[in-house]
């Protein structure tokens, strides 16, 4: 017999408010209902009354983990519209901070995944190493999260010479840890047994559902906005897109772990290529028109669309976060899995609900779809009334007969 297990909106395995309804048959999940929208804040509308330079501060607060990705996507769009080429130094600074963010996001996910499957040691270790990345971010940008380092036309804060030895030291310290983590995950027989073949998303399904980022790359779809739509420093650096064919949770973990090493490689090269020079090419005017910016966030491709009427504010700003596509793949990868794996699979593509939150509108003019308590009470009273009237009618009829 099918049963429904509601999970959320506040549940110990979920960091953010979201709601899953697992339909189960015994231990097996047969269907999953996803309900989001608890964190919807109305950022797109807020963005329309901020000036071009103020918007990055708003969009980096879309999500605390991708707080460099959203402003990056937005700045790429504005620069494309204003036809602005940013200075070389700014390109490399952007690459350094962006890759540090990717490291911090992937390590964070790895820790949480370890926590879900009961490897709390992995959780504690990984979050300890993640502090090195946060230290590096604090040194280069001035804050542990929400860096406020990027602006249309360049960056706000330079990487000074005294920072570079420290940065290199922390990266050197981190690299063996990342390599060790890969060995720990790849060679552990328990993890193999636990994660292989769980929550499989095939290549065709990933394409059909438009999966993005590590979720798609773990299913053998080698898409990466940094390589497919090259921007800033990425075409000038040597790195490769990691892709694995399996599509299960193990592959999703492995892709992220291998990407950590690529990120470290990019940071090392970018530090070497830093040459003295200006860090910003001020944009004086944004012409009439529209543009899009595509940036590869740690979770996948972030899409920003802006439209300008030549004033100092965008008249439309549309954001699509990668989790919006990836959350839907749960519908496929959860079905047939054990209930015990449900939490892990829904977390495996590193969902970010504050990025994704949409507003669902209910049309009030169709009352038969939605009934509130008042309406149900009204219906109930009307029924009583109609029954009472019927009785009265019948009694009237009987009295008539008499």
């Amino acid at each position, binding site marked *: 017999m099918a049963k429904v297990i509601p999970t959320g*909106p506040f549940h*110990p395995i979920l960091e*953010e*408010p979201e709601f899953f309804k697992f339909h189960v048959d015994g231990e097996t999940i047969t269907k999953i209902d996803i309900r989001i929208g608890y964190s919807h804040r109305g950022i797109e509308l807020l963005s329309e009354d901020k000036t071009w330079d103020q918007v990055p501060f708003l969009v980096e607060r879309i999500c605390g983990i991708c707080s460099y990705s959203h402003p990056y996507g937005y700045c790429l769009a504005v620069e494309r519209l204003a036809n602005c080429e940013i200075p070389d130094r700014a390109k490399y600074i952007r690459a350094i901070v962006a890759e540090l963010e990717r490291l911090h996001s992937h390590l964070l996910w790895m820790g949480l995944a370890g926590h879900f499957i009961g490897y709390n040691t992995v959780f504690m270790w990984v979050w300890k190493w993640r502090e090195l990345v946060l230290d590096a971010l604090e040194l280069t940008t001035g804050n542990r*999260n*929400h860096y406020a380092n990027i602006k249309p036309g360049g960056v706000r804060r330079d990487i000074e010479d005294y920072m570079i030895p420290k940065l290199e030291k922390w990266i050197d310290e981190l690299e063996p840890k990342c390599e060790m983590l890969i060995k720990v995950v790849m060679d552990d027989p328990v993890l193999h047994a636990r994660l292989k073949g769980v929550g499989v998303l095939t290549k065709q399904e990933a394409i059909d559902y438009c999966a993005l980022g590590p979720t798609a790359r773990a299913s053998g779809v080698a898409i990466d906005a940094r390589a497919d739509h090259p921007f800033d420093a990425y075409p000038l650096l040597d790195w490769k897109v990691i892709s694995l064919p399996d599509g299960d949770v193990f592959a999703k973990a492995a892709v992220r772990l291998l990407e950590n090493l690529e990120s470290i490689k990019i940071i090392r090269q970018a530090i070497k290529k830093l040459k003295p020079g200006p860090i910003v090419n001020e944009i004086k005017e944004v012409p009439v028109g529209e543009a899009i910016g595509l940036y590869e966030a740690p979770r996948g491709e972030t899409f920003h669309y802006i439209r300008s009427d030549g004033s100092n504010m965008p008249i439309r700003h549309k954001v699509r976060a990668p989790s919006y596509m990836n959350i839907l793949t749960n519908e496929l990868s959860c079905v047939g899995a054990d209930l015990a794996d449900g939490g892990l699979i829904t977390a495996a593509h590193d969902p970010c609900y*504050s990025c994704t939150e949409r507003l669902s509108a209910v049309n009030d003019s169709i009352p038969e779809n939605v009934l509130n308590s008042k309406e149900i009470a009204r219906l109930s009273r009307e029924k009583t009334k109609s029954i009472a009237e019927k009785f009265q009618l019948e009694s009237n009829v009987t009295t008539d007969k008499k």
Partner: protein
Amino acid sequence: MSLFLKALKKSPWVFHVNAGACNNCDIEILDCLTPRFDVERFGIKLVGSIKHADALIISGGVTANILPRVLEIYEQAPKPCLVVAVGSCGCSGGIFRDAYNMVGPIDHYLPVDVFIPGCPPRPEALIAGIVKALGKL
């Protein structure tokens, strides 16, 4: 001081609610548990149910959709329950103050004991805030 309050101060268990935050305060709260800060050595523990908790940590300015759920959670909490508002949004609504879907900071609805400002507050600030909240008992 009653035995109950004495025990509570010795080892406060906290429950954490994200009421429309950007995730960052929540990560910093989780960060407090991990080796560098490790608040568990002071007996502070993040628990999975509000029914076991002594303190409710709320991050984020409150969205219209989440408010009834947060109030319900507070009702279920065993009293006395300390309420701690975390982050600029939790204290004042922050950058999202004027958004159409925000119904105002949490202190309009619940008695907040301690406000911890910052975007996001550093883990040190979070620990100091919780300790201050305990001082109120």
